[in-house]
C-alpha cells in the first residue's frame, strides 16, 4: 500500500465520522475499505462482520459499551490467531 492510499483511507474515515448518521457511516465505511483493498477475496465476510458490529452499536446506543464489545472481539480474535499459530508451529515441528 502506498502512502497516498493510506492518506485516502484517513480522509475516508474523516468522512465517516463527519456524516453522523449510523447507516450512512456504515455504507461509506464499506466503500472506503473496498477502495482501499487490492484483493477482495472473501470481502463479503468482512461486510457481514462490520454490519453486525454496526447493529450492535445501534442497539447498545452507548459509546463506551460499544468500545468494550470491540475490545472483547479484539481479544477473542487475537486468541484464535494465537491458537492457530501454535498449531502451525506444532505441525512444522519447530519454532517461528
Amino acid at each position, binding site marked *: *500500500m502506498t502512502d497516498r492510499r*493510506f492518506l485516502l*483511507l*484517513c480522509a475516508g*474515515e474523516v468522512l*465517516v*465520522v*463527519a*456524516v*453522523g*448518521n*449510523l447507516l450512512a*457511516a*456504515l455504507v461509506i*465505511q*464499506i466503500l472506503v*475499505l473496498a477502495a482501499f483493498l*487490492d*484483493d477482495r*477475496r*472473501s470481502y463479503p*465476510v*468482512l461486510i457481514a*462482520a*462490520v454490519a453486525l*458490529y*454496526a447493529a450492535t*452499536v*445501534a442497539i447498545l*446506543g452507548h*459509546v*463506551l459499551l*460499544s*468500545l468494550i464489545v*470491540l475490545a472483547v*472481539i*479484539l481479544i477473542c*480474535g487475537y486468541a*484464535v*490467531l494465537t491458537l*492457530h*499459530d501454535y498449531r*502451525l*508451529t506444532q*505441525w*512444522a*515441528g*519447530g*519454532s*517461528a
Partner: protein
Amino acid sequence: MMRPTRTTGGVAALALVLTALAIIIESSAAVIAAGSLTIFLLWRAGRFSRDFYALAASLTVSRDVDRTILRQGAEAHVRVRVDLALPPGMEVRVRDILPAVAVGTAPLVESGESATYTIRIMAPGRTAFGGVVLSARDTYFSYDLRIRHFNKPDLRAFPVRGTESGGGREGSGMQEFEVDKRATLEGPAVRGFRLYRLGDDPRLIDWKISAKHNVFYVRELTGLEGGTPLIVVDLPIREGDDHEAFTRYSMIIADAIERAIEARTGCSLLVLAGGEVTRFLSGTSDLGEAFAALGGLAPVESRAPLYRAPGSAILSMRARLPVGRDGPERAYRAKLGRVLANFVRESRSPFGDAVAAALARVEATEVHLYTLARGDSSHLTQVIHQAKARGMRVVAKMPRGAPIPPGVDAMEAI
C-alpha cells in the same frame, strides 16, 4: 509468530485515533469507523493465517547433495528446489537451514526455482539439515516458519587423517591440517563417497560402506574430481648446498605426478622460478613427457623478483565494492577501483598473464602447490589468487612450520 507490517501499524494507529475521538465527541459513527478498521485487521490476519497454512502444506523441497559421506572439512555441493502453491498477493521465499556442524550460506529460493550452494561439514559424525525457513509476506503481515520435516538427506563426515593443528595465521581464512608424510606419499586421499554410477571403475567401490548402506558407494579421490589436478612446482632459490633437501623435494614431486597419472587420466604441470614460468605442460597422461619436463631442475637465482607485487587478482579484490555499504567508504572504493583499473591496463604483469593463460588451459578444479617456501612468496600469492578467482581449490604442500601463503584452502606437510 505473525508480524505486522508498517501498513498494519498505520491502520492500527488510525483505529486508535478514531477510538479516542469517539470517546471525546461521543460519536457512534467514530465507533463504527474504529471498529471497522479493527475488524478489518482481524479479517486480514485470519486470511493471511489461512493462506499461510495452505502455503506451508503445499510446500515441497527436493534437496540433492553430491556426496552424503564425506571427509571432515570437505566441500559438498547442495542443490535445492522449492515448489509450492502461491496464494495471490503473497511473496514467498524459502531458505535451507544448514546442519548444525556445517558452514556455508544457503541462498533464498523462490517458488519453482532451484539454487546451488556449497557447505563444509566441520565435525565428524552423522548430521542432517535442520529443515527450511518458509518466509511469506503480504501487504499487512509477514511470517517466518521453521519447518523441520525437510531435513533429508542425512550426511556423514568421517575425521581427517592426522591432527588438526589450527596453527595457521589468524584471520587468514585458511584451513590448515597436517597430514603425516607416510599418508601424503600414499597417493591421492579419499575426499568423499558418492553413489555408484554406471561406468565407474569397480575398483573404486568401497565395500565396507556399501555393505553398511546396502547400496554401492564409490570413493572419490582428492584432486581427481572434475578433471586432472594442476601440479605447481615452485623451484627454490639457490642458497648454500642443500642438495639433500632438494633431492627429497624432487622425489616427492615425481612421486605425486606418477601417482596422479596412474590414478586417473593425467595431470597438468606448471614450474615456477620466482616471478617466472619456466615450464608448462597441459593435461598430459604421458609419464615420460612429465618426467622430461621435470628433468634438470635445480635451485635457481631469481631473475624476475616481484618484490611483494600483489598482482591483478588481489588488486581487483581490493577494489571490489562492499555490498550494501554506503557513504564515504563506497565512494573511496569506487574511486580506488577506477584508479586500479587504469593502473592494470597501463602496466601488465607478464608473470600474472602467463599464469592466467596456463590456468585457463587446464581443466582442473584443484591446484597442488609444491614449495619449500623460501624467500619472497609474492609469485605464489599471485598464483593462489589467480586459481581462487577461477574457483579452484588450492592445496599447499610444503615443509612443516613454513609460512603459509594467504588464500590456501589446505596445507599438507611434506
